[in-house]
């Protein structure tokens, strides 16, 4: 395998500003290219105005810029209509919105919701709390030893009467993909709807919500090179239209009287108050950047790195990789543990060598509990990583057991 050149790293001031740093935590949050930083700065420093409100040109231009991002997001995920794109503050808000304004409105006592045991707390706790409050049944699809949800599990768990299946496309904790097509197909067979957590998938692979027949898709800007504080809720128009407003306030109303209010049409109806304008603009710039590089190029680059890292890690006999190492079931995330060493020590020792990795439960405690792995060390890649990052990781991983007082 050949080493990659830094074709894209030069676009990221973060790496110029931190020349010694090996950043392997993009599943937590990604760095931003100059293109995104500049789009935000230009807006903030030269074009800032509130949107949907002003009778002056600056405000109209800001509104147009904002609305143009809706159209970019639409194209990016293959949606049919602009009003199917709702801007939120992130994946967590998107999911909470579906839970309270869709599920909370339509589900009845005894109805069943199915999740997978792979879910991030953000796609688990909201459903669980709704289930408790409303006496719904909450079930889980479990995984095999490789972290994979097997076809049988889908058949058995998604049965008649299941109303909602909420499922991640890729586990942020162990990097394993879920059989999303099969799950969507099965759910639709039994008459349920599917909420897809795309936080870890949308940044790394081409998505087409229409051909994949997704009912809802949610993701965060900050995991795809845009700002924190911005995210997306995609929903089929027919579903969005049945949702109650999630927040009430400016811009989502039509007529307000003292005791009654009529609400605006989609998408405004689900977007109350001054939004994160610069966040939305950064998301537009990030999508432009991704399109400019090409999602295939990004995907191939990341998977090459993942393959390379898996190979190198497999040469260290004290490294235990969690979940499958079969690249076709994986995103650019690898979770592992070093024998006898807690992941926090691993991360700390690597940090000392300027290698940033994540350790802990990755907001997936039920998964960790199910796998009987209290915590893992996790590395994750994006377009700006290279094989040298992996080599450095491996070099310093070799020191970890020695520091902890083990022979090697």
């Amino acid at each position, binding site marked *: 395998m050949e080493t990659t050149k830094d074709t894209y790293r030069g676009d990221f001031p973060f790496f110029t500003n931190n020349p010694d740093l090996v950043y392997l935590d993009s599943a937590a949050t990604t760095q931003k290219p100059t293109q995104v930083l500049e789009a935000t700065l230009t807006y903030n420093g030269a074009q800032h105005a509130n949107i949907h409100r002003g009778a002056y040109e600056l405000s109209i231009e800001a509104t147009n810029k904002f609305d143009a991002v809706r159209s970019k997001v639409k194209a990016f995920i293959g949606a049919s209509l602009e009003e199917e794109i709702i801007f939120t503050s992130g994946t967590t808000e998107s999911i909470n919105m579906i839970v309270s304004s869709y599920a909370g409105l339509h589900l009845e006592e005894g109805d069943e919701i199915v999740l997978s045991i792979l879910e991030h707390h953000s796609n688990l706790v909201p459903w669980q709390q709704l289930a408790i409050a409303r006496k719904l049944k909450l079930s889980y699809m479990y995984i095999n030893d490789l972290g994979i949800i097997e076809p049988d599990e889908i058949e058995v768990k998604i049965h008649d009467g299941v109303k909602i299946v909420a499922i991640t496309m890729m586990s942020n904790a162990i990097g394993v993909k879920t059989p999303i097509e099969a799950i969507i197909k099965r759910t639709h067979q039994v008459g349920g709807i599917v909420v897809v957590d795309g936080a870890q998938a949308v940044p790394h692979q081409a998505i087409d919500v229409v051909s994949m027949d997704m009912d809802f898709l949610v993701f965060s800007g900050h995991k795809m090179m845009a700002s924190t504080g911005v995210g997306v809720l995609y929903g089929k128009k027919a579903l969005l239209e049945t949702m109650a407003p999630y927040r009430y306030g400016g811009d989502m109303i039509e007529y307000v009287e003292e005791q009654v209010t009529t609400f605006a049409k989609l998408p405004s109806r689900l977007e109350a108050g001054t939004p994160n304008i610069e966040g939305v603009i950064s998301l537009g710039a990030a999508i432009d950047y991704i399109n400019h590089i090409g999602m295939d190029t990004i995907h191939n680059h990341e998977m090459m790195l993942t393959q390379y890292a898996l190979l190198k890690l497999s040469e260290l006999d004290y490294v235990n990789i969690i979940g499958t190492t079969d690249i076709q079931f994986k995103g650019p995330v690898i979770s592992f543990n070093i024998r*006898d*060493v*807690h*992941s*926090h*020590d691993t991360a*700390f*020792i690597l*940090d*000392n060598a300027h290698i940033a990795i994540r*350790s*802990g*439960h990755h907001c997936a405690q039920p998964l*960790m509990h199910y796998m009987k792995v*209290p*915590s893992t060390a996790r590395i994750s890649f994006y377009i700006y990583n290279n094989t040298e990052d992996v080599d450095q990781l491996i070099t310093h991983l070799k020191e970890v057991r020695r*520091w*902890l*007082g083990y022979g090697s």
Partner: protein
Amino acid sequence: MDLSSVYTEIIMEHNQAKHNKHQLTATTHKERGHNPSCGDDITLALTVEDNIIIDAAYDGMGCAISQASTSMMIDLVKGKTVEEAREKVSTFIRLIKGEVNPDDALEALEDVVVLSNIKNMPARVKCAVLAWHTLDEALNNPSE
């Protein structure tokens, strides 16, 4: 940062030693403590009789620092009165905050003072103090 000031021999010994990591038969105090962000999660069990901690043990998972700190703490407080143990907790917290220096804490904390280096490592402070906060809570909340 010099890692050898963190992963000292005695800390490594206590991390690997399991003499305090087991279940107690007659538990009078039990408390779970954890650091949600890093996954340290311990349960501390005490047997207190006539105001004296006659036995103590822990269970759970955590990094070397939290495990060693827990184990060393147990060695230190076993046989001490509840008040003495509380006093040691408070001295240890002050040590880690840098409010008391290792030499002055030596008498109270004995070889536990080796953990004082942690005070310069924000990522590890929580690991070091976890067991001590848990002990304090445990002493405040007898099992029944």
